[in-house]
């Protein structure tokens, strides 16, 4: 009955966030533990990028995580929450690239997608109109005469965010009307461009990308949306769909030729660097793993371009502070 | 019914030791004896209710109309319809009074239609002397009756399938004196129509209702004869000791 929990210290590193980054973080954690047996092994939880950011920005101290894994960049709003809660010094490290791949079962449906097609097929109200498309051929007569059925990530996930920003908004902006709307009513624009239909054609599959893979494997007419690493992992079962005529491959993603490519990040709470034993070493471990052909590449991470990688590597030892200005500059390098 | 050399075992334990007895149709036969002497056990062999006890085993023959009820191929269901039974504690089904009586005729398919069933129910209740008391509340639950009424309901239930023999195992031991008197009266009325066997722990009751009495002791039937003889002039020492309260 008696005895306190109190304290205010923690021995093991805690990282939360993106399910896309999760397997990579696990892998780094594993090698970190091997290389530094004196430190406790890091605790990695997959919560989705959004929830991870919320936790990360809740404050400093033993009760909050040290690292947020993210499959998109931190949003200025999140940065501000962090600041408001006393998480002043944050270091952003890009650990590699991932593509949001569109895929179907081997031997299943194939088509050449474009952001505009996807927007028209998946938006709740394409260009502000009512969504009526039931089949791909309703969107564009050249497409197959098959029902639209897309399995994808839930609204909590960074993959979904990437889907919104890299694909849906791009497809949306193809219409000049929308371009205009963006200027006049930003909220309305965001809603029209990013809200996904909820009538069953887009199936929200939970935080488990594996399930999506299983789903489309079982249904040749279904399309799945998930991180490129999952496509790579399951190359024997599923095939990537071309977008703007480009196939989702390692090369095309690392060169940003494929429109769905996006960088993956970890955010480190600098205040914890000296408080959590091993945190510096753990961050440094990332740099030893993310190279092309390195251990992370084996499980599907696409290495960043050389210049970015060099910058990131420097960040793992110098811990530059993230500023709001950094975040407001282009969200995704294209 | 004729029983010849009947022995009953519960597992290794012998509860009845070669009892032979003739039960006469137009009489009431009483089984008396100290607790645990096997009265109930023997009674239950008469309609094979012992079959429900896994460990029970019966030897010897028991004949009903010359037909051995323990022969293989004997139909137990039919036997039990022919040899009815009333238990120590009244055990009406938790159904309506009507349903309690109609249960037997229904499962055996004895009634042709609803009217016939109504008739059977009424006739049985009348014979059990319960009709007047319950005719306005046939759809009340059987368990809502008083103890004595419940016991008469059970007798009526047994009568409803027109049995040839009615076995009663201490039917009054859970009842008050007034209810007991009613049941004793009823037994007297039913005598002649059915062969009746009654187990009782009260010698006075045996003396009051029966014409034949069998005295059991330690699994053996010690003495069997005219009730008046047994009580006034027992042949065996043990019977006498029991009747005068030496033990039991």
């Amino acid at each position, binding site marked *: 009955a008696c005895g306190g929990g*109190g*304290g205010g210290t923690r021995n093991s590193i805690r990282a939360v966030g993106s399910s896309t980054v999760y397997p990579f973080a696990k892998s780094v954690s594993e090698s970190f533990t091997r290389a530094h047996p004196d430190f406790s092994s890091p605790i990695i939880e997959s919560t989705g990028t959004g929830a991870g950011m919320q936790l990360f920005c809740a404050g400093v101290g033993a009760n909050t995580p040290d690292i947020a894994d993210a499959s998109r960049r931190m949003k200025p709003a999140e940065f501000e929450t962090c600041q408001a809660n006393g998480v002043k010094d944050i270091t952003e490290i890009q650990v590699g690239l991932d593509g949001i791949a569109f895929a179907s079962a081997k031997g299943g449906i194939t088509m050449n997608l474009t952001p505009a097609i996807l927007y028209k097929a998946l938006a709740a109200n394409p260009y502000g109109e009512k969504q009526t498309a039931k089949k791909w051929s309703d969107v564009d007569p050249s497409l197959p005469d098959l029902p639209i059925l897309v399995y994808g990530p*839930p*609204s909590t996930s960074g993959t979904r965010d990437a889907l919104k920003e890299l694909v849906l908004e791009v497809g949306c902006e193809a219409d000049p009307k929308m371009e205009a709307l963006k200027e006049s009513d930003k909220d309305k624009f965001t809603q029209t461009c990013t809200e996904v239909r909820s009538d069953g054609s887009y199936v929200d599959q939970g935080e488990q990308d594996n399930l999506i893979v299983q789903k489309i494997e079982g249904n040749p007419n279904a399309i799945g949306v998930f991180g490129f690493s999952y496509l790579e992992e399951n190359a024997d079962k599923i095939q990537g769909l071309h977008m703007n005529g480009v196939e989702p491959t390692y090369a095309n993603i690392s060169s940003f030729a494929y429109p769905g490519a996006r960088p993956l990040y970890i955010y480190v709470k600098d205040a914890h660097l*000296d408080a959590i034993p091993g945190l510096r070493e753990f961050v440094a471990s990332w740099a030893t793993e993310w190279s092309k052909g390195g251990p992370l590449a084996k499980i599907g991470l696409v290495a960043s371009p050389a210049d970015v990688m060099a910058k990131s590597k420097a960040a793992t030892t110098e811990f530059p502070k993230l500023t709001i200005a950094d975040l407001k500059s282009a969200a995704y390098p294209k | 019914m004729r029983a010849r050399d009947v022995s009953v075992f519960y597992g290794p334990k012998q509860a009845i030791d070669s009892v032979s007895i003739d039960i006469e149709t137009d009489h009431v036969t009483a089984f008396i004896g100290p607790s645990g002497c096997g009265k109930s056990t023997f009674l239950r062999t008469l309609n094979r209710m012992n079959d429900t006890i896994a460990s029970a085993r019966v030897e010897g023959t028991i004949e009903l109309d010359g037909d051995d009820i323990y022969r293989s191929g004997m139909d137990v269901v039919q036997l039990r319809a022919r040899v009815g039974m009333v238990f120590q504690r009244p055990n009406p089904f938790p159904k309506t009074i009507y349903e309690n009586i109609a249960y037997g005729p229904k499962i055996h398919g004895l009634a042709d239609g609803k009217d016939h069933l109504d008739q059977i129910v009424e006739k049985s209740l009348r014979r059990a002397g319960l009709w007047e008391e319950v005719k306005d509340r046939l759809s009340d639950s059987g368990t809502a009756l008083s103890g004595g009424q419940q016991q008469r309901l059970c007798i009526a239930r047994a009568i409803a399938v027109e049995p040839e023999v009615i076995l009663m195992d201490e039917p009054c031991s859970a009842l008050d004196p007034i209810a007991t008197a009613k049941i004793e009266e009823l037994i007297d009325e039913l005598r002649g129509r059915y062969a009746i066997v009654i187990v009782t722990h009260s010698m006075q009751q045996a003396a009051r209702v029966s014409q034949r009495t069998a005295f059991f002791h330690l699994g053996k039937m010690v003495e069997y004869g005219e009730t008046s003889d047994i009580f006034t002039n027992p042949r065996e020492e043990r019977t006498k000791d029991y009747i005068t309260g030496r033990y039991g």
Partner: protein
Amino acid sequence: MMSPAILLLLALLLGLAGWLAARARAWGYKRAAPNTRLAALPSYHGWYVALWVLVPVLLFVCLWAVIEPQLVTQYVLGTPAAANLPDFGMQRQTMLAEARAVAVGSAQGVFNPDSRALIEPFEQALLRYNIVGVIATLLIGFAGGTWAFLRLKPDFRARTKVERIVMGILLLASLVAVLTTLGIFISLVFETIRFFGMVSPIDFLFGTHWGPDPMGNPANPDPSRYGAIPLFWGTIYIGAIIAMIVAIPLGLMSAIYLTQYANPRWRKWLKPMLEILAGVPTVVYGYFAALTVAPIVRDLAISVGISNASSESALAAGLVMGVMIIPFVSSMADDSIAAVPQAMRDGSLAMGATQSETIRKVLVPAALPGIVAGVMLAISRAIGETMIVVMAAGAAANLSANPLEAMTTVTFQIVAMLTGEGSFDHPATLSAFALGFVLFLVTLALNFIALRVVKRFREAYE
């Protein structure tokens, strides 16, 4: 953190000494007046004193375990070595904790070289306060023991006193249940109220679209996305309909077969089998449902021409859940049938009814209240079941009667909204508590009614 353990040991020793001394004293009384009865056995005198030693000392040790570290830290912070500790609280504490760990011997070395200077002050402080702790323990134990010892007399009713303490402990133990219930209620109700401050209960309870957006602005949620009807429907459809269609007949018939037909040798084997079925963890059932049953269901559906069968279907989850519930229903039915007095069965058999007639017409109707109550308990268990639906039912909040479609349940959404840690200020996260609260109330009501029915039913036959 050696010291509490040492203090506890010390307390036990003191208690033992008190026990022995008091018992010896009581024997002394007895020897002095051999013909009078003592009001209590000598050992009760012993226990009386021992408790007077132990209880105060234990209270003190608890308290000391909390304040001693603070005193130690205070002391260390007062030393010059602490002057150059960093300002950031967490880092400070880490360093202090590291140094402390080394000082008490639970760690070999420190990670932060600056902490090293703190080790020695810690050792000094620990030594000093350990001595203080030991002395205080001794004093308190001695004081309590002496006070109790002085009250011993030949006619002192030590047993009554000791037994009163024992009763107090028993009462405390049984209050834990009430506290737990209260704890559940409190932990659910506050968050639920917060949630209803953001989304109105009407929208929540009667809305038909479920799709909270955890990334949306927490200050201004869209109430039309918080309609829980599809979840309630999925829960009922899977747990109370599909699962029960499997579990009720199979469970009931199993119970009937086991209690009425099976011979004892078979029953000895079959009953534990059912119990094992009940003992399989739900995560295993979930895995079984997702990996084995769901594909079979889907393939069967496709083979009969239903092309859009989902691989996560309400049917698969419900079937497996039904299997899981079978032993539960069967044991409840078993109890209820067993509670019907043997006299009912004998009465029916003596009328010439066959076994099955007896069962169908007498036993089951008589046991019906108990069986119904059992089914209600089974339903409450099914709708609270989590892992099977998490692994096999899917996330889609469909309002459909097609068992081959994916459906989601209340429990699934609680897990979905809260896995990992939730930030407690977003309605999407808070909705999990509201859902939990609804689930709690519903299962509570089901159980309450069921227990009442069972009780009535038992009483009827007692």
